[in-house]
């Protein structure tokens, strides 16, 4: 393609990428190295109903306004936010490393810090859910593909349901079912024989529940992609394998899976990214006491009465870096293949 033609072809995409990807990233990085100005406080008398007047501290707006107008971006703090306890917690890590006597003690202290606790769940979730959903998706695809053609449409619809249901609604429905008074919760209580048995009260079981939910929700995506791939499977190769006496398992292992390999890479890439940003189930299952994720930290910093924009931006940048690290092996391979050609 001529460079000129390429330029005009690429322009709309490039413009959209600049506006909706590059600019927000620049903005997030900027916000993460600036923090609000130091507050100028003063003591004033507050009067409220049923109580009367009390002395309270408030922000001196006039003094604050002057500082804000002089430096509207806030005060430059460099990497301070990244290194504080809410993020990489360098000082706390060093302290834990120096004073911890055993590895167990060190891990306890490490996972007491919000970012590392969130990372522990996020990474566990990502690395269990992604391979599992690929396996489950492939199994569903193979099963549906071998059905009679009259049944296929119906089965495809039902297999896609988990993906059609909005994640928040899906997790809420499950959340109610596993409640200690819900249908699954009551069944578990009966099975465990302990009236105080509760899935939601146990960290381990909450993690398992979230992981199962994650697989249930994303497997249809893998299924659709693999099912499409199966339609392009060359018939003669399968027939050749059958004539050679390959069992069904051998056919899958030596013919079908290698044929689908590029799709597996594709699904793995997309799902690694998605699962690393796990968010809705943590909110839907009200699970923040047991499992937090990087995205949940961002949401928590932005919401409600705290509005810590700098902290949320720093976590966002760390998430972007995390995704980049996760995807780097695949990206490096793709680059090598490209250079090789």
């Amino acid at each position, binding site marked *: 393609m001529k460079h000129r033609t390429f330029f005009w072809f690429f322009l709309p995409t490039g413009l959209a990428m600049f506006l909706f990807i590059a600019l927000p990233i620049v903005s997030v990085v900027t916000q993460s190295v600036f*923090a*609000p*100005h*130091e*507050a100028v*406080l*003063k003591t*004033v*008398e*507050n*009067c*409220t*109903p*049923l*109580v009367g*007047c*009390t002395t*309270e*501290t*408030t*922000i001196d*707006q006039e003094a*604050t*306004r002057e500082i804000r107008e002089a430096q509207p971006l806030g*005060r430059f*703090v460099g990497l*301070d*936010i990244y290194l*504080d*306890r*809410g993020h990489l917690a360098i000082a*706390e890590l060093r302290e834990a490393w120096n004073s911890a006597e055993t590895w167990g003690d060190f891990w306890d202290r490490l996972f*007491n810090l*919000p970012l590392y606790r969130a990372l522990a769940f996020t990474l566990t979730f990502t690395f269990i859910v992604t391979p599992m959903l690929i396996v489950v998706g492939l199994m569903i695809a193979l099963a549906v593909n071998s059905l009679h053609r009259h049944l296929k449409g119906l089965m495809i619809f039902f297999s896609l349901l988990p993906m059609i249901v909005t994640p928040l609604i899906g997790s809420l429905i499950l*959340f109610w079912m596993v*409640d*200690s*008074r819900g249908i699954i919760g009551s069944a578990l209580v009966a099975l465990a024989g302990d*009236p*105080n*048995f*509760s899935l*939601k*009260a146990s*960290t381990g079981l909450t993690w398992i529940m979230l992981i199962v939910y994650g697989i249930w929700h994303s497997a249809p995506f893998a299924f659709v992609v693999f099912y499409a791939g199966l339609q392009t499977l060359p018939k003669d190769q399968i027939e050749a394998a059958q004539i050679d006496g390959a069992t069904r398992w051998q056919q899958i292992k030596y013919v079908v899976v290698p044929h689908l390999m590029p799709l597996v890479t594709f699904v793995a890439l997309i799902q690694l990214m998605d699962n690393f940003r796990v968010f809705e189930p943590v909110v839907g299952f*009200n*699970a*923040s*006491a*047991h499992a937090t994720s990087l995205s949940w930290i961002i949401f*928590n910093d*932005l*919401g*409600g*009465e*705290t*509005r*810590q924009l*700098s*902290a949320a931006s720093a976590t966002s940048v760390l998430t972007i870096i995390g995704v980049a690290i996760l995807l780097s092996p695949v990206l490096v391979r793709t680059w090598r293949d490209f250079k090789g050609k």
Partner: protein
Amino acid sequence: MFFRKVALSSALALMAGNAFACEISARVNIIGNEFPAIQTVGAGAAECTGSVVTKNLTADHKDIHVAGMQGNPAEYTSAIVANSTLTILMNDDLVRPLDDLVAKHGQSLQKSQLITVDGKVMAVAFMANAQHLMYRKDILADLGIEPPKTYEEMLDAAKMIRDKGVMQNPIGGAYAAGWNLAQEFNNMFIGYGGTFFKEGTAEPNINSEAGVNTLNMMKALTEYMNPDFLTHDSNATNAEYRAGNIALLNMWGSRAATQTTADGVTDAVKNGHAIAGPMTVGGGSTPASTLWWDGWTVAKNISDDEAEATFIAMMNGIRPELMQDAEVASQAVWLIEGYEPTEAAVGVFDAAKAGTVPYPMVPYMGLMHGAIGNELADFLQGKESAEQALADIEAAYRAAAVEKGFLK
């Protein structure tokens, strides 16, 4: 059909407008929470004619009101706030002092309704709120237990109810990790005489004896709660109460009137429902609760015309005539002239009488509340000591306060 509806509603609005003579000349846009009393105020404001009154009443108001009032002109001309949220708006200088408007249009206001900060009226309060005891008088009477006045008595009562096999988990509490859990900590901490900050500074002061006592009491209470307590917010706790699964709970006064009116409340709960003032703890005299008010503000970044229109419309939403409507009167503990306390108001009035302290209005309290909500769950699950949990809260608060410029 649509036009007929519009015509009908504008005709109704005209009639209403004539009846109460509420005329405004500029736009009004209200952001606020969504419970029944606020719906009433919003509907009252929307009766005004002459210009457009829009409102966005949602439980997520806290996430959008700052953004919606930061622009110039501001999207929202009025925010309905409480103690904690007024501080958030004032931190960013988003609300207008109301002294001139109160003098011009505020004749029907009582002095106690004016929230003044540094001598300037910053908000007009219309209702009070506090968390207090709700209990099942039938169950307590059957076992010969007096309604608890202290948290220690509450534990004793709970033990008896469990031992007699009446209920497995008789205590309810809004202990959902996050805002609710932190609020329960605040109540108990104040009950034990704790102070959140070192006098006159933003330095945290919760890693103290009061803090440890607070955590131990909370832990003791959770032994009598549904094991899912860390996921139960006030709505879920109420659902448990309405279903007859719990007998004792510390609950918001603003929910007292509707506690037994929801669908599916059993007759036993309807007949057995009773309320009382907040409990004390650890031999202290200050109730383990906080006093709240709800009121409205006028945005700073709007024209004077809009500010005046907003003030007039909001005044129409809290006019004293509304208090004659029995249903409106039962919705809240109104601070409006002419309000006759209903039975549901007993708890909040008792709270005020017993000297319940107001929720702290310092600019960094929101950060403390957030830190408590995030760091308490580990202790309640038995994963760490009380001292460690309190140290974690202080460390988390400190990181947030340094970022926001309250600490160095």
